[in-house]
C-alpha cells in the first residue's frame, strides 16, 4: 500500500470539508448557536447552556480529532513505523473513563445551574401588564408552573391542521367568551406569559426559536411553557412536528407590544369578536326563519311524509349515497363523518366542525353552505341545492342523522 494516493484523497476530503465551512462569517449569526431574542430569560439561558456545551464539545472534538490525525500521520508504515505489540493499558483505560465521566459531571452541573432560569417563570416586571392572580386554564394532571406570585397572562395555544389558535384566559369562567386570535399572538412586554399547549387533531409542536424551546402539542395532553419579552417586536416561528401536508405552512408569530397597546388590542379584539358573533347569530336566525317560512308553504300533499318522520337509517343512506334522481349529491363523498364511515376530504370534517352545533345550525349549514363557511375552506364548493333536491322529509331525516352522528342521541 503506498500512502501517496491515500494522503492525496485525505487532503482532497479535507479541502471539501473546509469548503463547507467557508460561509462562516459574522453575517451568519445562527451558524453555531440557537437563537434567542426579545430579552426572554429562558431562551437566553438555553443559548448560554448551549454555548457551554459547544465549547466543551469543541475541546473534545479538536482534542480527540487532533490525537487521531497525529497518530495516523506519525505511525504510517510508509514512514518506516514498526508496530509494537501492546495489548492495552489499564491506567489509560481508567483514565479516559474517569475523564469522560468528569466532563459529563461538569455538563450536568452547568445544566442544573441554568435549569431554574429556563424552567421557572419569573414575576412580571413592575411596568408590565397587571394580571389578576391565579387566572389560568386549569387542565391536565400536571400543573403549569406559574410565577412565584401567581400572576401571569395565561394563554391557551391550540394546534389544529394547519393553524394555531390562541385563547386568552380571563376571569369569566365560560371559556367560550374568551378573547382569541389565530396565527399571530399579541402579548404585552415585561409581562410573564404562560402557555398551555394543546392539539385539536394530530400532534403539532409550538416553536418560536427566539423565545425558547419547542413544546409538543399532543392531543389529549397539555404541555406548558412561558416567556417574558422585554423588547417589542414580532417573533416568528412555525410548527415543528410533522402534522400533514400543510405542515410547512403552519406558521406562528408572537407580537410583543407595550402593556397599554396590548390593552387597546385586547379591547378591540373583544368588541370585534362580540360583534362578529352577534351578526353571525342574527344571520343564522334569519336563515332558520326563512327556512321555516319556506317549509310552511310546502304543498299539502307532502305533509303526511313530514308528519311521519323517516327513520335515521334513511338519513344515513342519503348521507352516503345522496338522491341521484333529484341531483342531491352524497354528503359523504366530500365530508368525513365517522358514523357513516365516509372519508371525503373536499370539505371539512363534520365530526369536528359540527360538534356542539344545534340541529338548526346544521340545517342552516346544509341549506346555505356559502353563508357559513368553515375556516380554511372557500365558498361555492358545496352545492346549495339541498333545499330543492331533497324533500322536507328527506332533509329532516338527514339533519337528524347528522346531528345524532356528531353529537349523539
Amino acid at each position: 500500500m503506498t500512502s501517496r494516493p491515500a494522503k492525496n484523497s485525505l487532503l482532497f476530503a479535507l479541502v471539501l470539508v473546509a469548503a463547507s465551512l467557508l460561509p462562516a462569517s459574522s453575517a451568519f449569526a445562527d451558524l453555531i448557536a440557537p437563537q434567542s431574542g426579545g430579552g426572554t430569560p429562558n431562551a437566553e439561558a438555553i443559548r448560554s447552556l448551549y454555548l457551554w456545551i459547544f465549547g466543551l464539545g469543541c475541546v473534545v472534538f479538536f482534542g480527540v480529532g487532533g490525537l487521531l490525525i497525529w497518530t495516523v500521520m506519525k505511525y504510517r508504515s510508509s514512514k518506516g513505523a514498526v508496530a509494537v505489540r501492546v495489548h492495552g493499558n489499564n491506567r489509560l483505560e481508567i483514565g479516559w473513563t474517569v475523564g469522560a465521566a468528569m466532563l459529563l459531571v461538569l455538563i450536568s452541573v452547568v445544566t442544573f445551574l441554568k435549569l431554574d432560569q429556563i424552567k421557572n417563570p419569573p414575576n412580571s416586571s413592575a411596568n408590565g401588564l397587571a394580571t389578576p392572580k391565579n387566572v389560568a386554564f386549569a387542565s391536565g394532571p400536571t400543573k403549569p408552573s406559574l410565577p412565584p406570585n401567581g400572576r401571569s397572562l395565561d394563554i391557551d395555544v391550540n394546534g389544529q391542521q394547519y393553524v394555531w389558535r390562541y385563547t386568552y384566559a380571563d376571569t369569566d369562567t365560560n371559556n367560550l367568551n374568551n378573547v382569541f386570535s389565530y396565527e399571530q399572538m399579541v402579548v404585552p412586554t415585561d409581562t410573564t406569559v404562560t402557555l398551555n399547549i394543546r392539539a385539536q387533531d394530530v400532534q403539532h409542536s409550538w416553536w418560536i426559536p427566539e423565545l425558547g424551546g419547542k413544546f409538543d402539542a399532543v392531543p389529549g395532553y397539555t404541555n406548558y411553557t412561558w416567556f417574558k419579552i422585554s423588547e417589542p417586536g414580532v417573533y416568528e416561528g412555525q410548527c415543528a412536528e410533522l402534522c400533514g401536508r400543510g405542515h410547512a405552512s403552519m406558521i406562528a408569530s408572537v407580537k410583543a407590544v407595550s402593556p397599554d397597546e396590548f390593552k387597546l388590542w385586547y379591547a378591540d379584539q373583544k368588541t370585534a369578536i362580540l360583534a362578529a358573533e352577534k351578526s353571525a347569530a342574527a344571520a343564522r336566525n334569519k336563515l332558520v326563519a326563512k327556512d321555516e317560512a319556506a317549509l310552511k308553504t310546502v304543498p299539502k300533499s307532502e305533509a303526511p311524509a313530514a308528519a311521519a318522520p323517516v327513520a335515521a337509517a334513511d338519513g344515513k343512506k342519503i348521507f352516503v349515497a345522496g338522491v341521484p334522481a333529484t341531483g342531491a349529491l352524497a354528503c359523504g363523498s366530500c365530508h368525513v363523518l365517522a358514523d357513516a364511515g365516509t372519508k371525503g376530504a373536499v370539505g371539512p370534517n363534520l365530526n369536528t366542525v359540527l360538534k356542539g352545533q344545534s340541529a338548526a345550525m346544521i340545517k342552516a349549514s346544509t341549506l346555505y353552505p356559502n353563508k357559513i363557511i368553515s375556516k380554511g375552506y372557500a365558498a361555492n364548493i358545496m352545492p346549495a341545492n339541498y333545499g330543492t333536491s331533497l324533500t322536507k322529509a328527506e332533509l329532516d331525516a338527514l339533519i337528524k342523522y347528522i346531528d345524532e352522528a356528531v353529537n349523539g342521541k
Partner: protein
Amino acid sequence: MTTTTATPAKPGIPEIVTNSAAPRPSGWLSWLTSTDHKRIGIMYIVASWVFLVLGGVEALLIRLQLAVPDNTLLSPQTYNSLFTMHGTTMIFLFLMPMIAGFANYLVPLMIGARDMAFPKLNALSLWLFIAGGIVFYGSLLFSPPECGWTCYAPLSGTAFSPSNGVDAWIFLMHLTGVASFIGALNIFVTITNMRAPGMSWGRMPLFIWAMLTQAILLIISVPVIAGAVTLLLTDRHFGTHFYDPTNGGSALLWQHLFWFFGHPEVYILVLPGFGVISEILPVFSRKPIFGYKAIVAATLGIAVIGTLVWAHHMFTTPLPFFLLIFFMLGTYLIAIPTGVKIFNWIFTMWRGSIEFPVAMLYSLGFLATFLLGGITGIFLATFPVDWQLQDTYFIVAHLHYTIVGGAVFAMMAALYYWFPKMTGRMMDEKLGKVSFALTLGGFWITFLIQHSAGLSGMPRRVYEYADVNNLGTYNMISTIGSFILALGVLLTIVNIVQSLKKGAKAGPDPWRGNTLEWFTPSPPPVNNFDVVPRVRSVEPMQDIRRQIERQDRVGEEAGVAAGD
C-alpha cells in the same frame, strides 16, 4: 499444532484435504433455493444495495426540492412521501439487511463454523425481508405513506392518513421485523454453540461480540415494535382506539413503544459497525486491538444503557420533570463507553505501522464522523438544549452523522475489506480512494451545514422554507454536497461491478488478516473449512502464520543440517 485430523505430507503444516466434493450447484435457481450462509449473505447485500439506490434517489429528490427557498418542484404530498420512503428504506431495507448480509457471511467463517445453526430459517429471513421491501414499494402504485419513518399517531390513523400507504408501512415493519428477529435468534444460537475449538468468550473476534450484542438487542426490541404496529393496524381497520385520544387512547403510547424499539435500533445499526472497525484497525495497524476487554465491556454497556434511554426522543412531549432528568443523565452515561471505544481504537493505531487501503480510509472516516455525531448527541441529551434543537435540521444532521458515520462508513469499510473474501477478487484501490474522498467530503458538506440550518430555525420535514437567516445558502451547500456524496457511492458501485470481472485475484489472505475467515480460500468452499484449526488467541491467523514461519525455519535448519 494447528490441525488434528488431516494427515499432511509435511508433519504439522496445515493443509486442506478434501476426499470428495459435490459439484457446486449453479444457475439462478441454485441461488433462490440456497441455504448456504454465504450465498444468503451475498443476496442480502445485493438486495440492500438495490434499496440503497432507491433510497438515495429519494434523498436527492428531497435535496433538489430544498435547494432553493420556496421551491415548487415537488408537491407537499410527494415530498412527505419521499422523506417517509427515504428514512424507512435506508434503515429497514438498506442498513439492516446490509448488516444482516455481512453477519450471515462472516459469523460462521469467523468462528470456524460450517454454516449457521438454522440454515433454512436463515433463508426464510432473507425472503421475508425481500417480501417486506416489495410490499412497501408496492405502495408506489397507489399512495405511498406520508407520515415519516416514525409514523406518529394520530397522524398515522385512518382519520388523517386514510390511504393504504400506512398499511404498506405496517406490513413492511412486520415482515422485516420477523426477518430480523429470526435472523437474530439464528446468529445468537450460532455464536453461542458453534465456535471453533479453543474459541472461548475471551477469544471471540470483536465483530462477533458486536453481532452477539446486536442479536440480543434485536430480540429485546423487535417484538415491541411488532406489537406497536399491530395495535396501529387494529386502530386503523378493526375499530380499536389504542392511539386515539378522542376515545380514551393515548398518542404518547405510540411514541413510547416506537422509541423503546427505535433507540436500541440505533445501536442495532451502529454496533456491527463498531465490530467491523475493531477488526479492520488492528489488521492495518499491524498491532493487536488495544483494550480488548474494555471494548467488549463498552459494547455490552452501550447495549444495556441504550435500552433504557428511549424517552430522550420525547423531551418536548408532556413528560413529568423527573423523567426528563432521568433520561438526560442516562443518555450522558452512554457517552462513557462510546468514548472508551474511540480512545481504544485510536490507541490501537498508536505505535502501530499503519497502512491505508480503502477499507482503512473508511474506518478513519468513520472515526472522525462518528466522533462529531457522538458530541452533538450530548447537546441533544441535555433536555433544555434539546428543546431548541429537537425536530430541526440539527437533529437531521446528528442522526446522519451517527448512522452514516457509525454504520454506513463502517459497512463501506467492511465491503472493501471482505469483498476479496466473498468474490476472490480485489477491488480497485485507486477508484476506491476517489470514491472514498467524494463520499466523505460530500457527506461533511451535506450534513455539517445542516446543524446551522437547524440552529437558524428550520424544522425538519418541511417541503419549503422562506429565505430567512441564510437558509437559502445553507440548503444550497447541503444540496451540492449530497450530489458529491451520491457520485462517491456511484463510483463504489462501478468499482464493485468492474472488480467482479477484472479485479486482481485475491488469494486466501490478501490483507494478512487476524481472524479465521482468512484461513479458507477466497471465495470459501460450500463447507467453509475442511479442517477447523484450534484457536489459541483473539488473532488465530497470526498464530497460524507464526507457526508456519517457525516450522519453515525448523525445516530449513534441519535441511541445512542434513546437507552438512
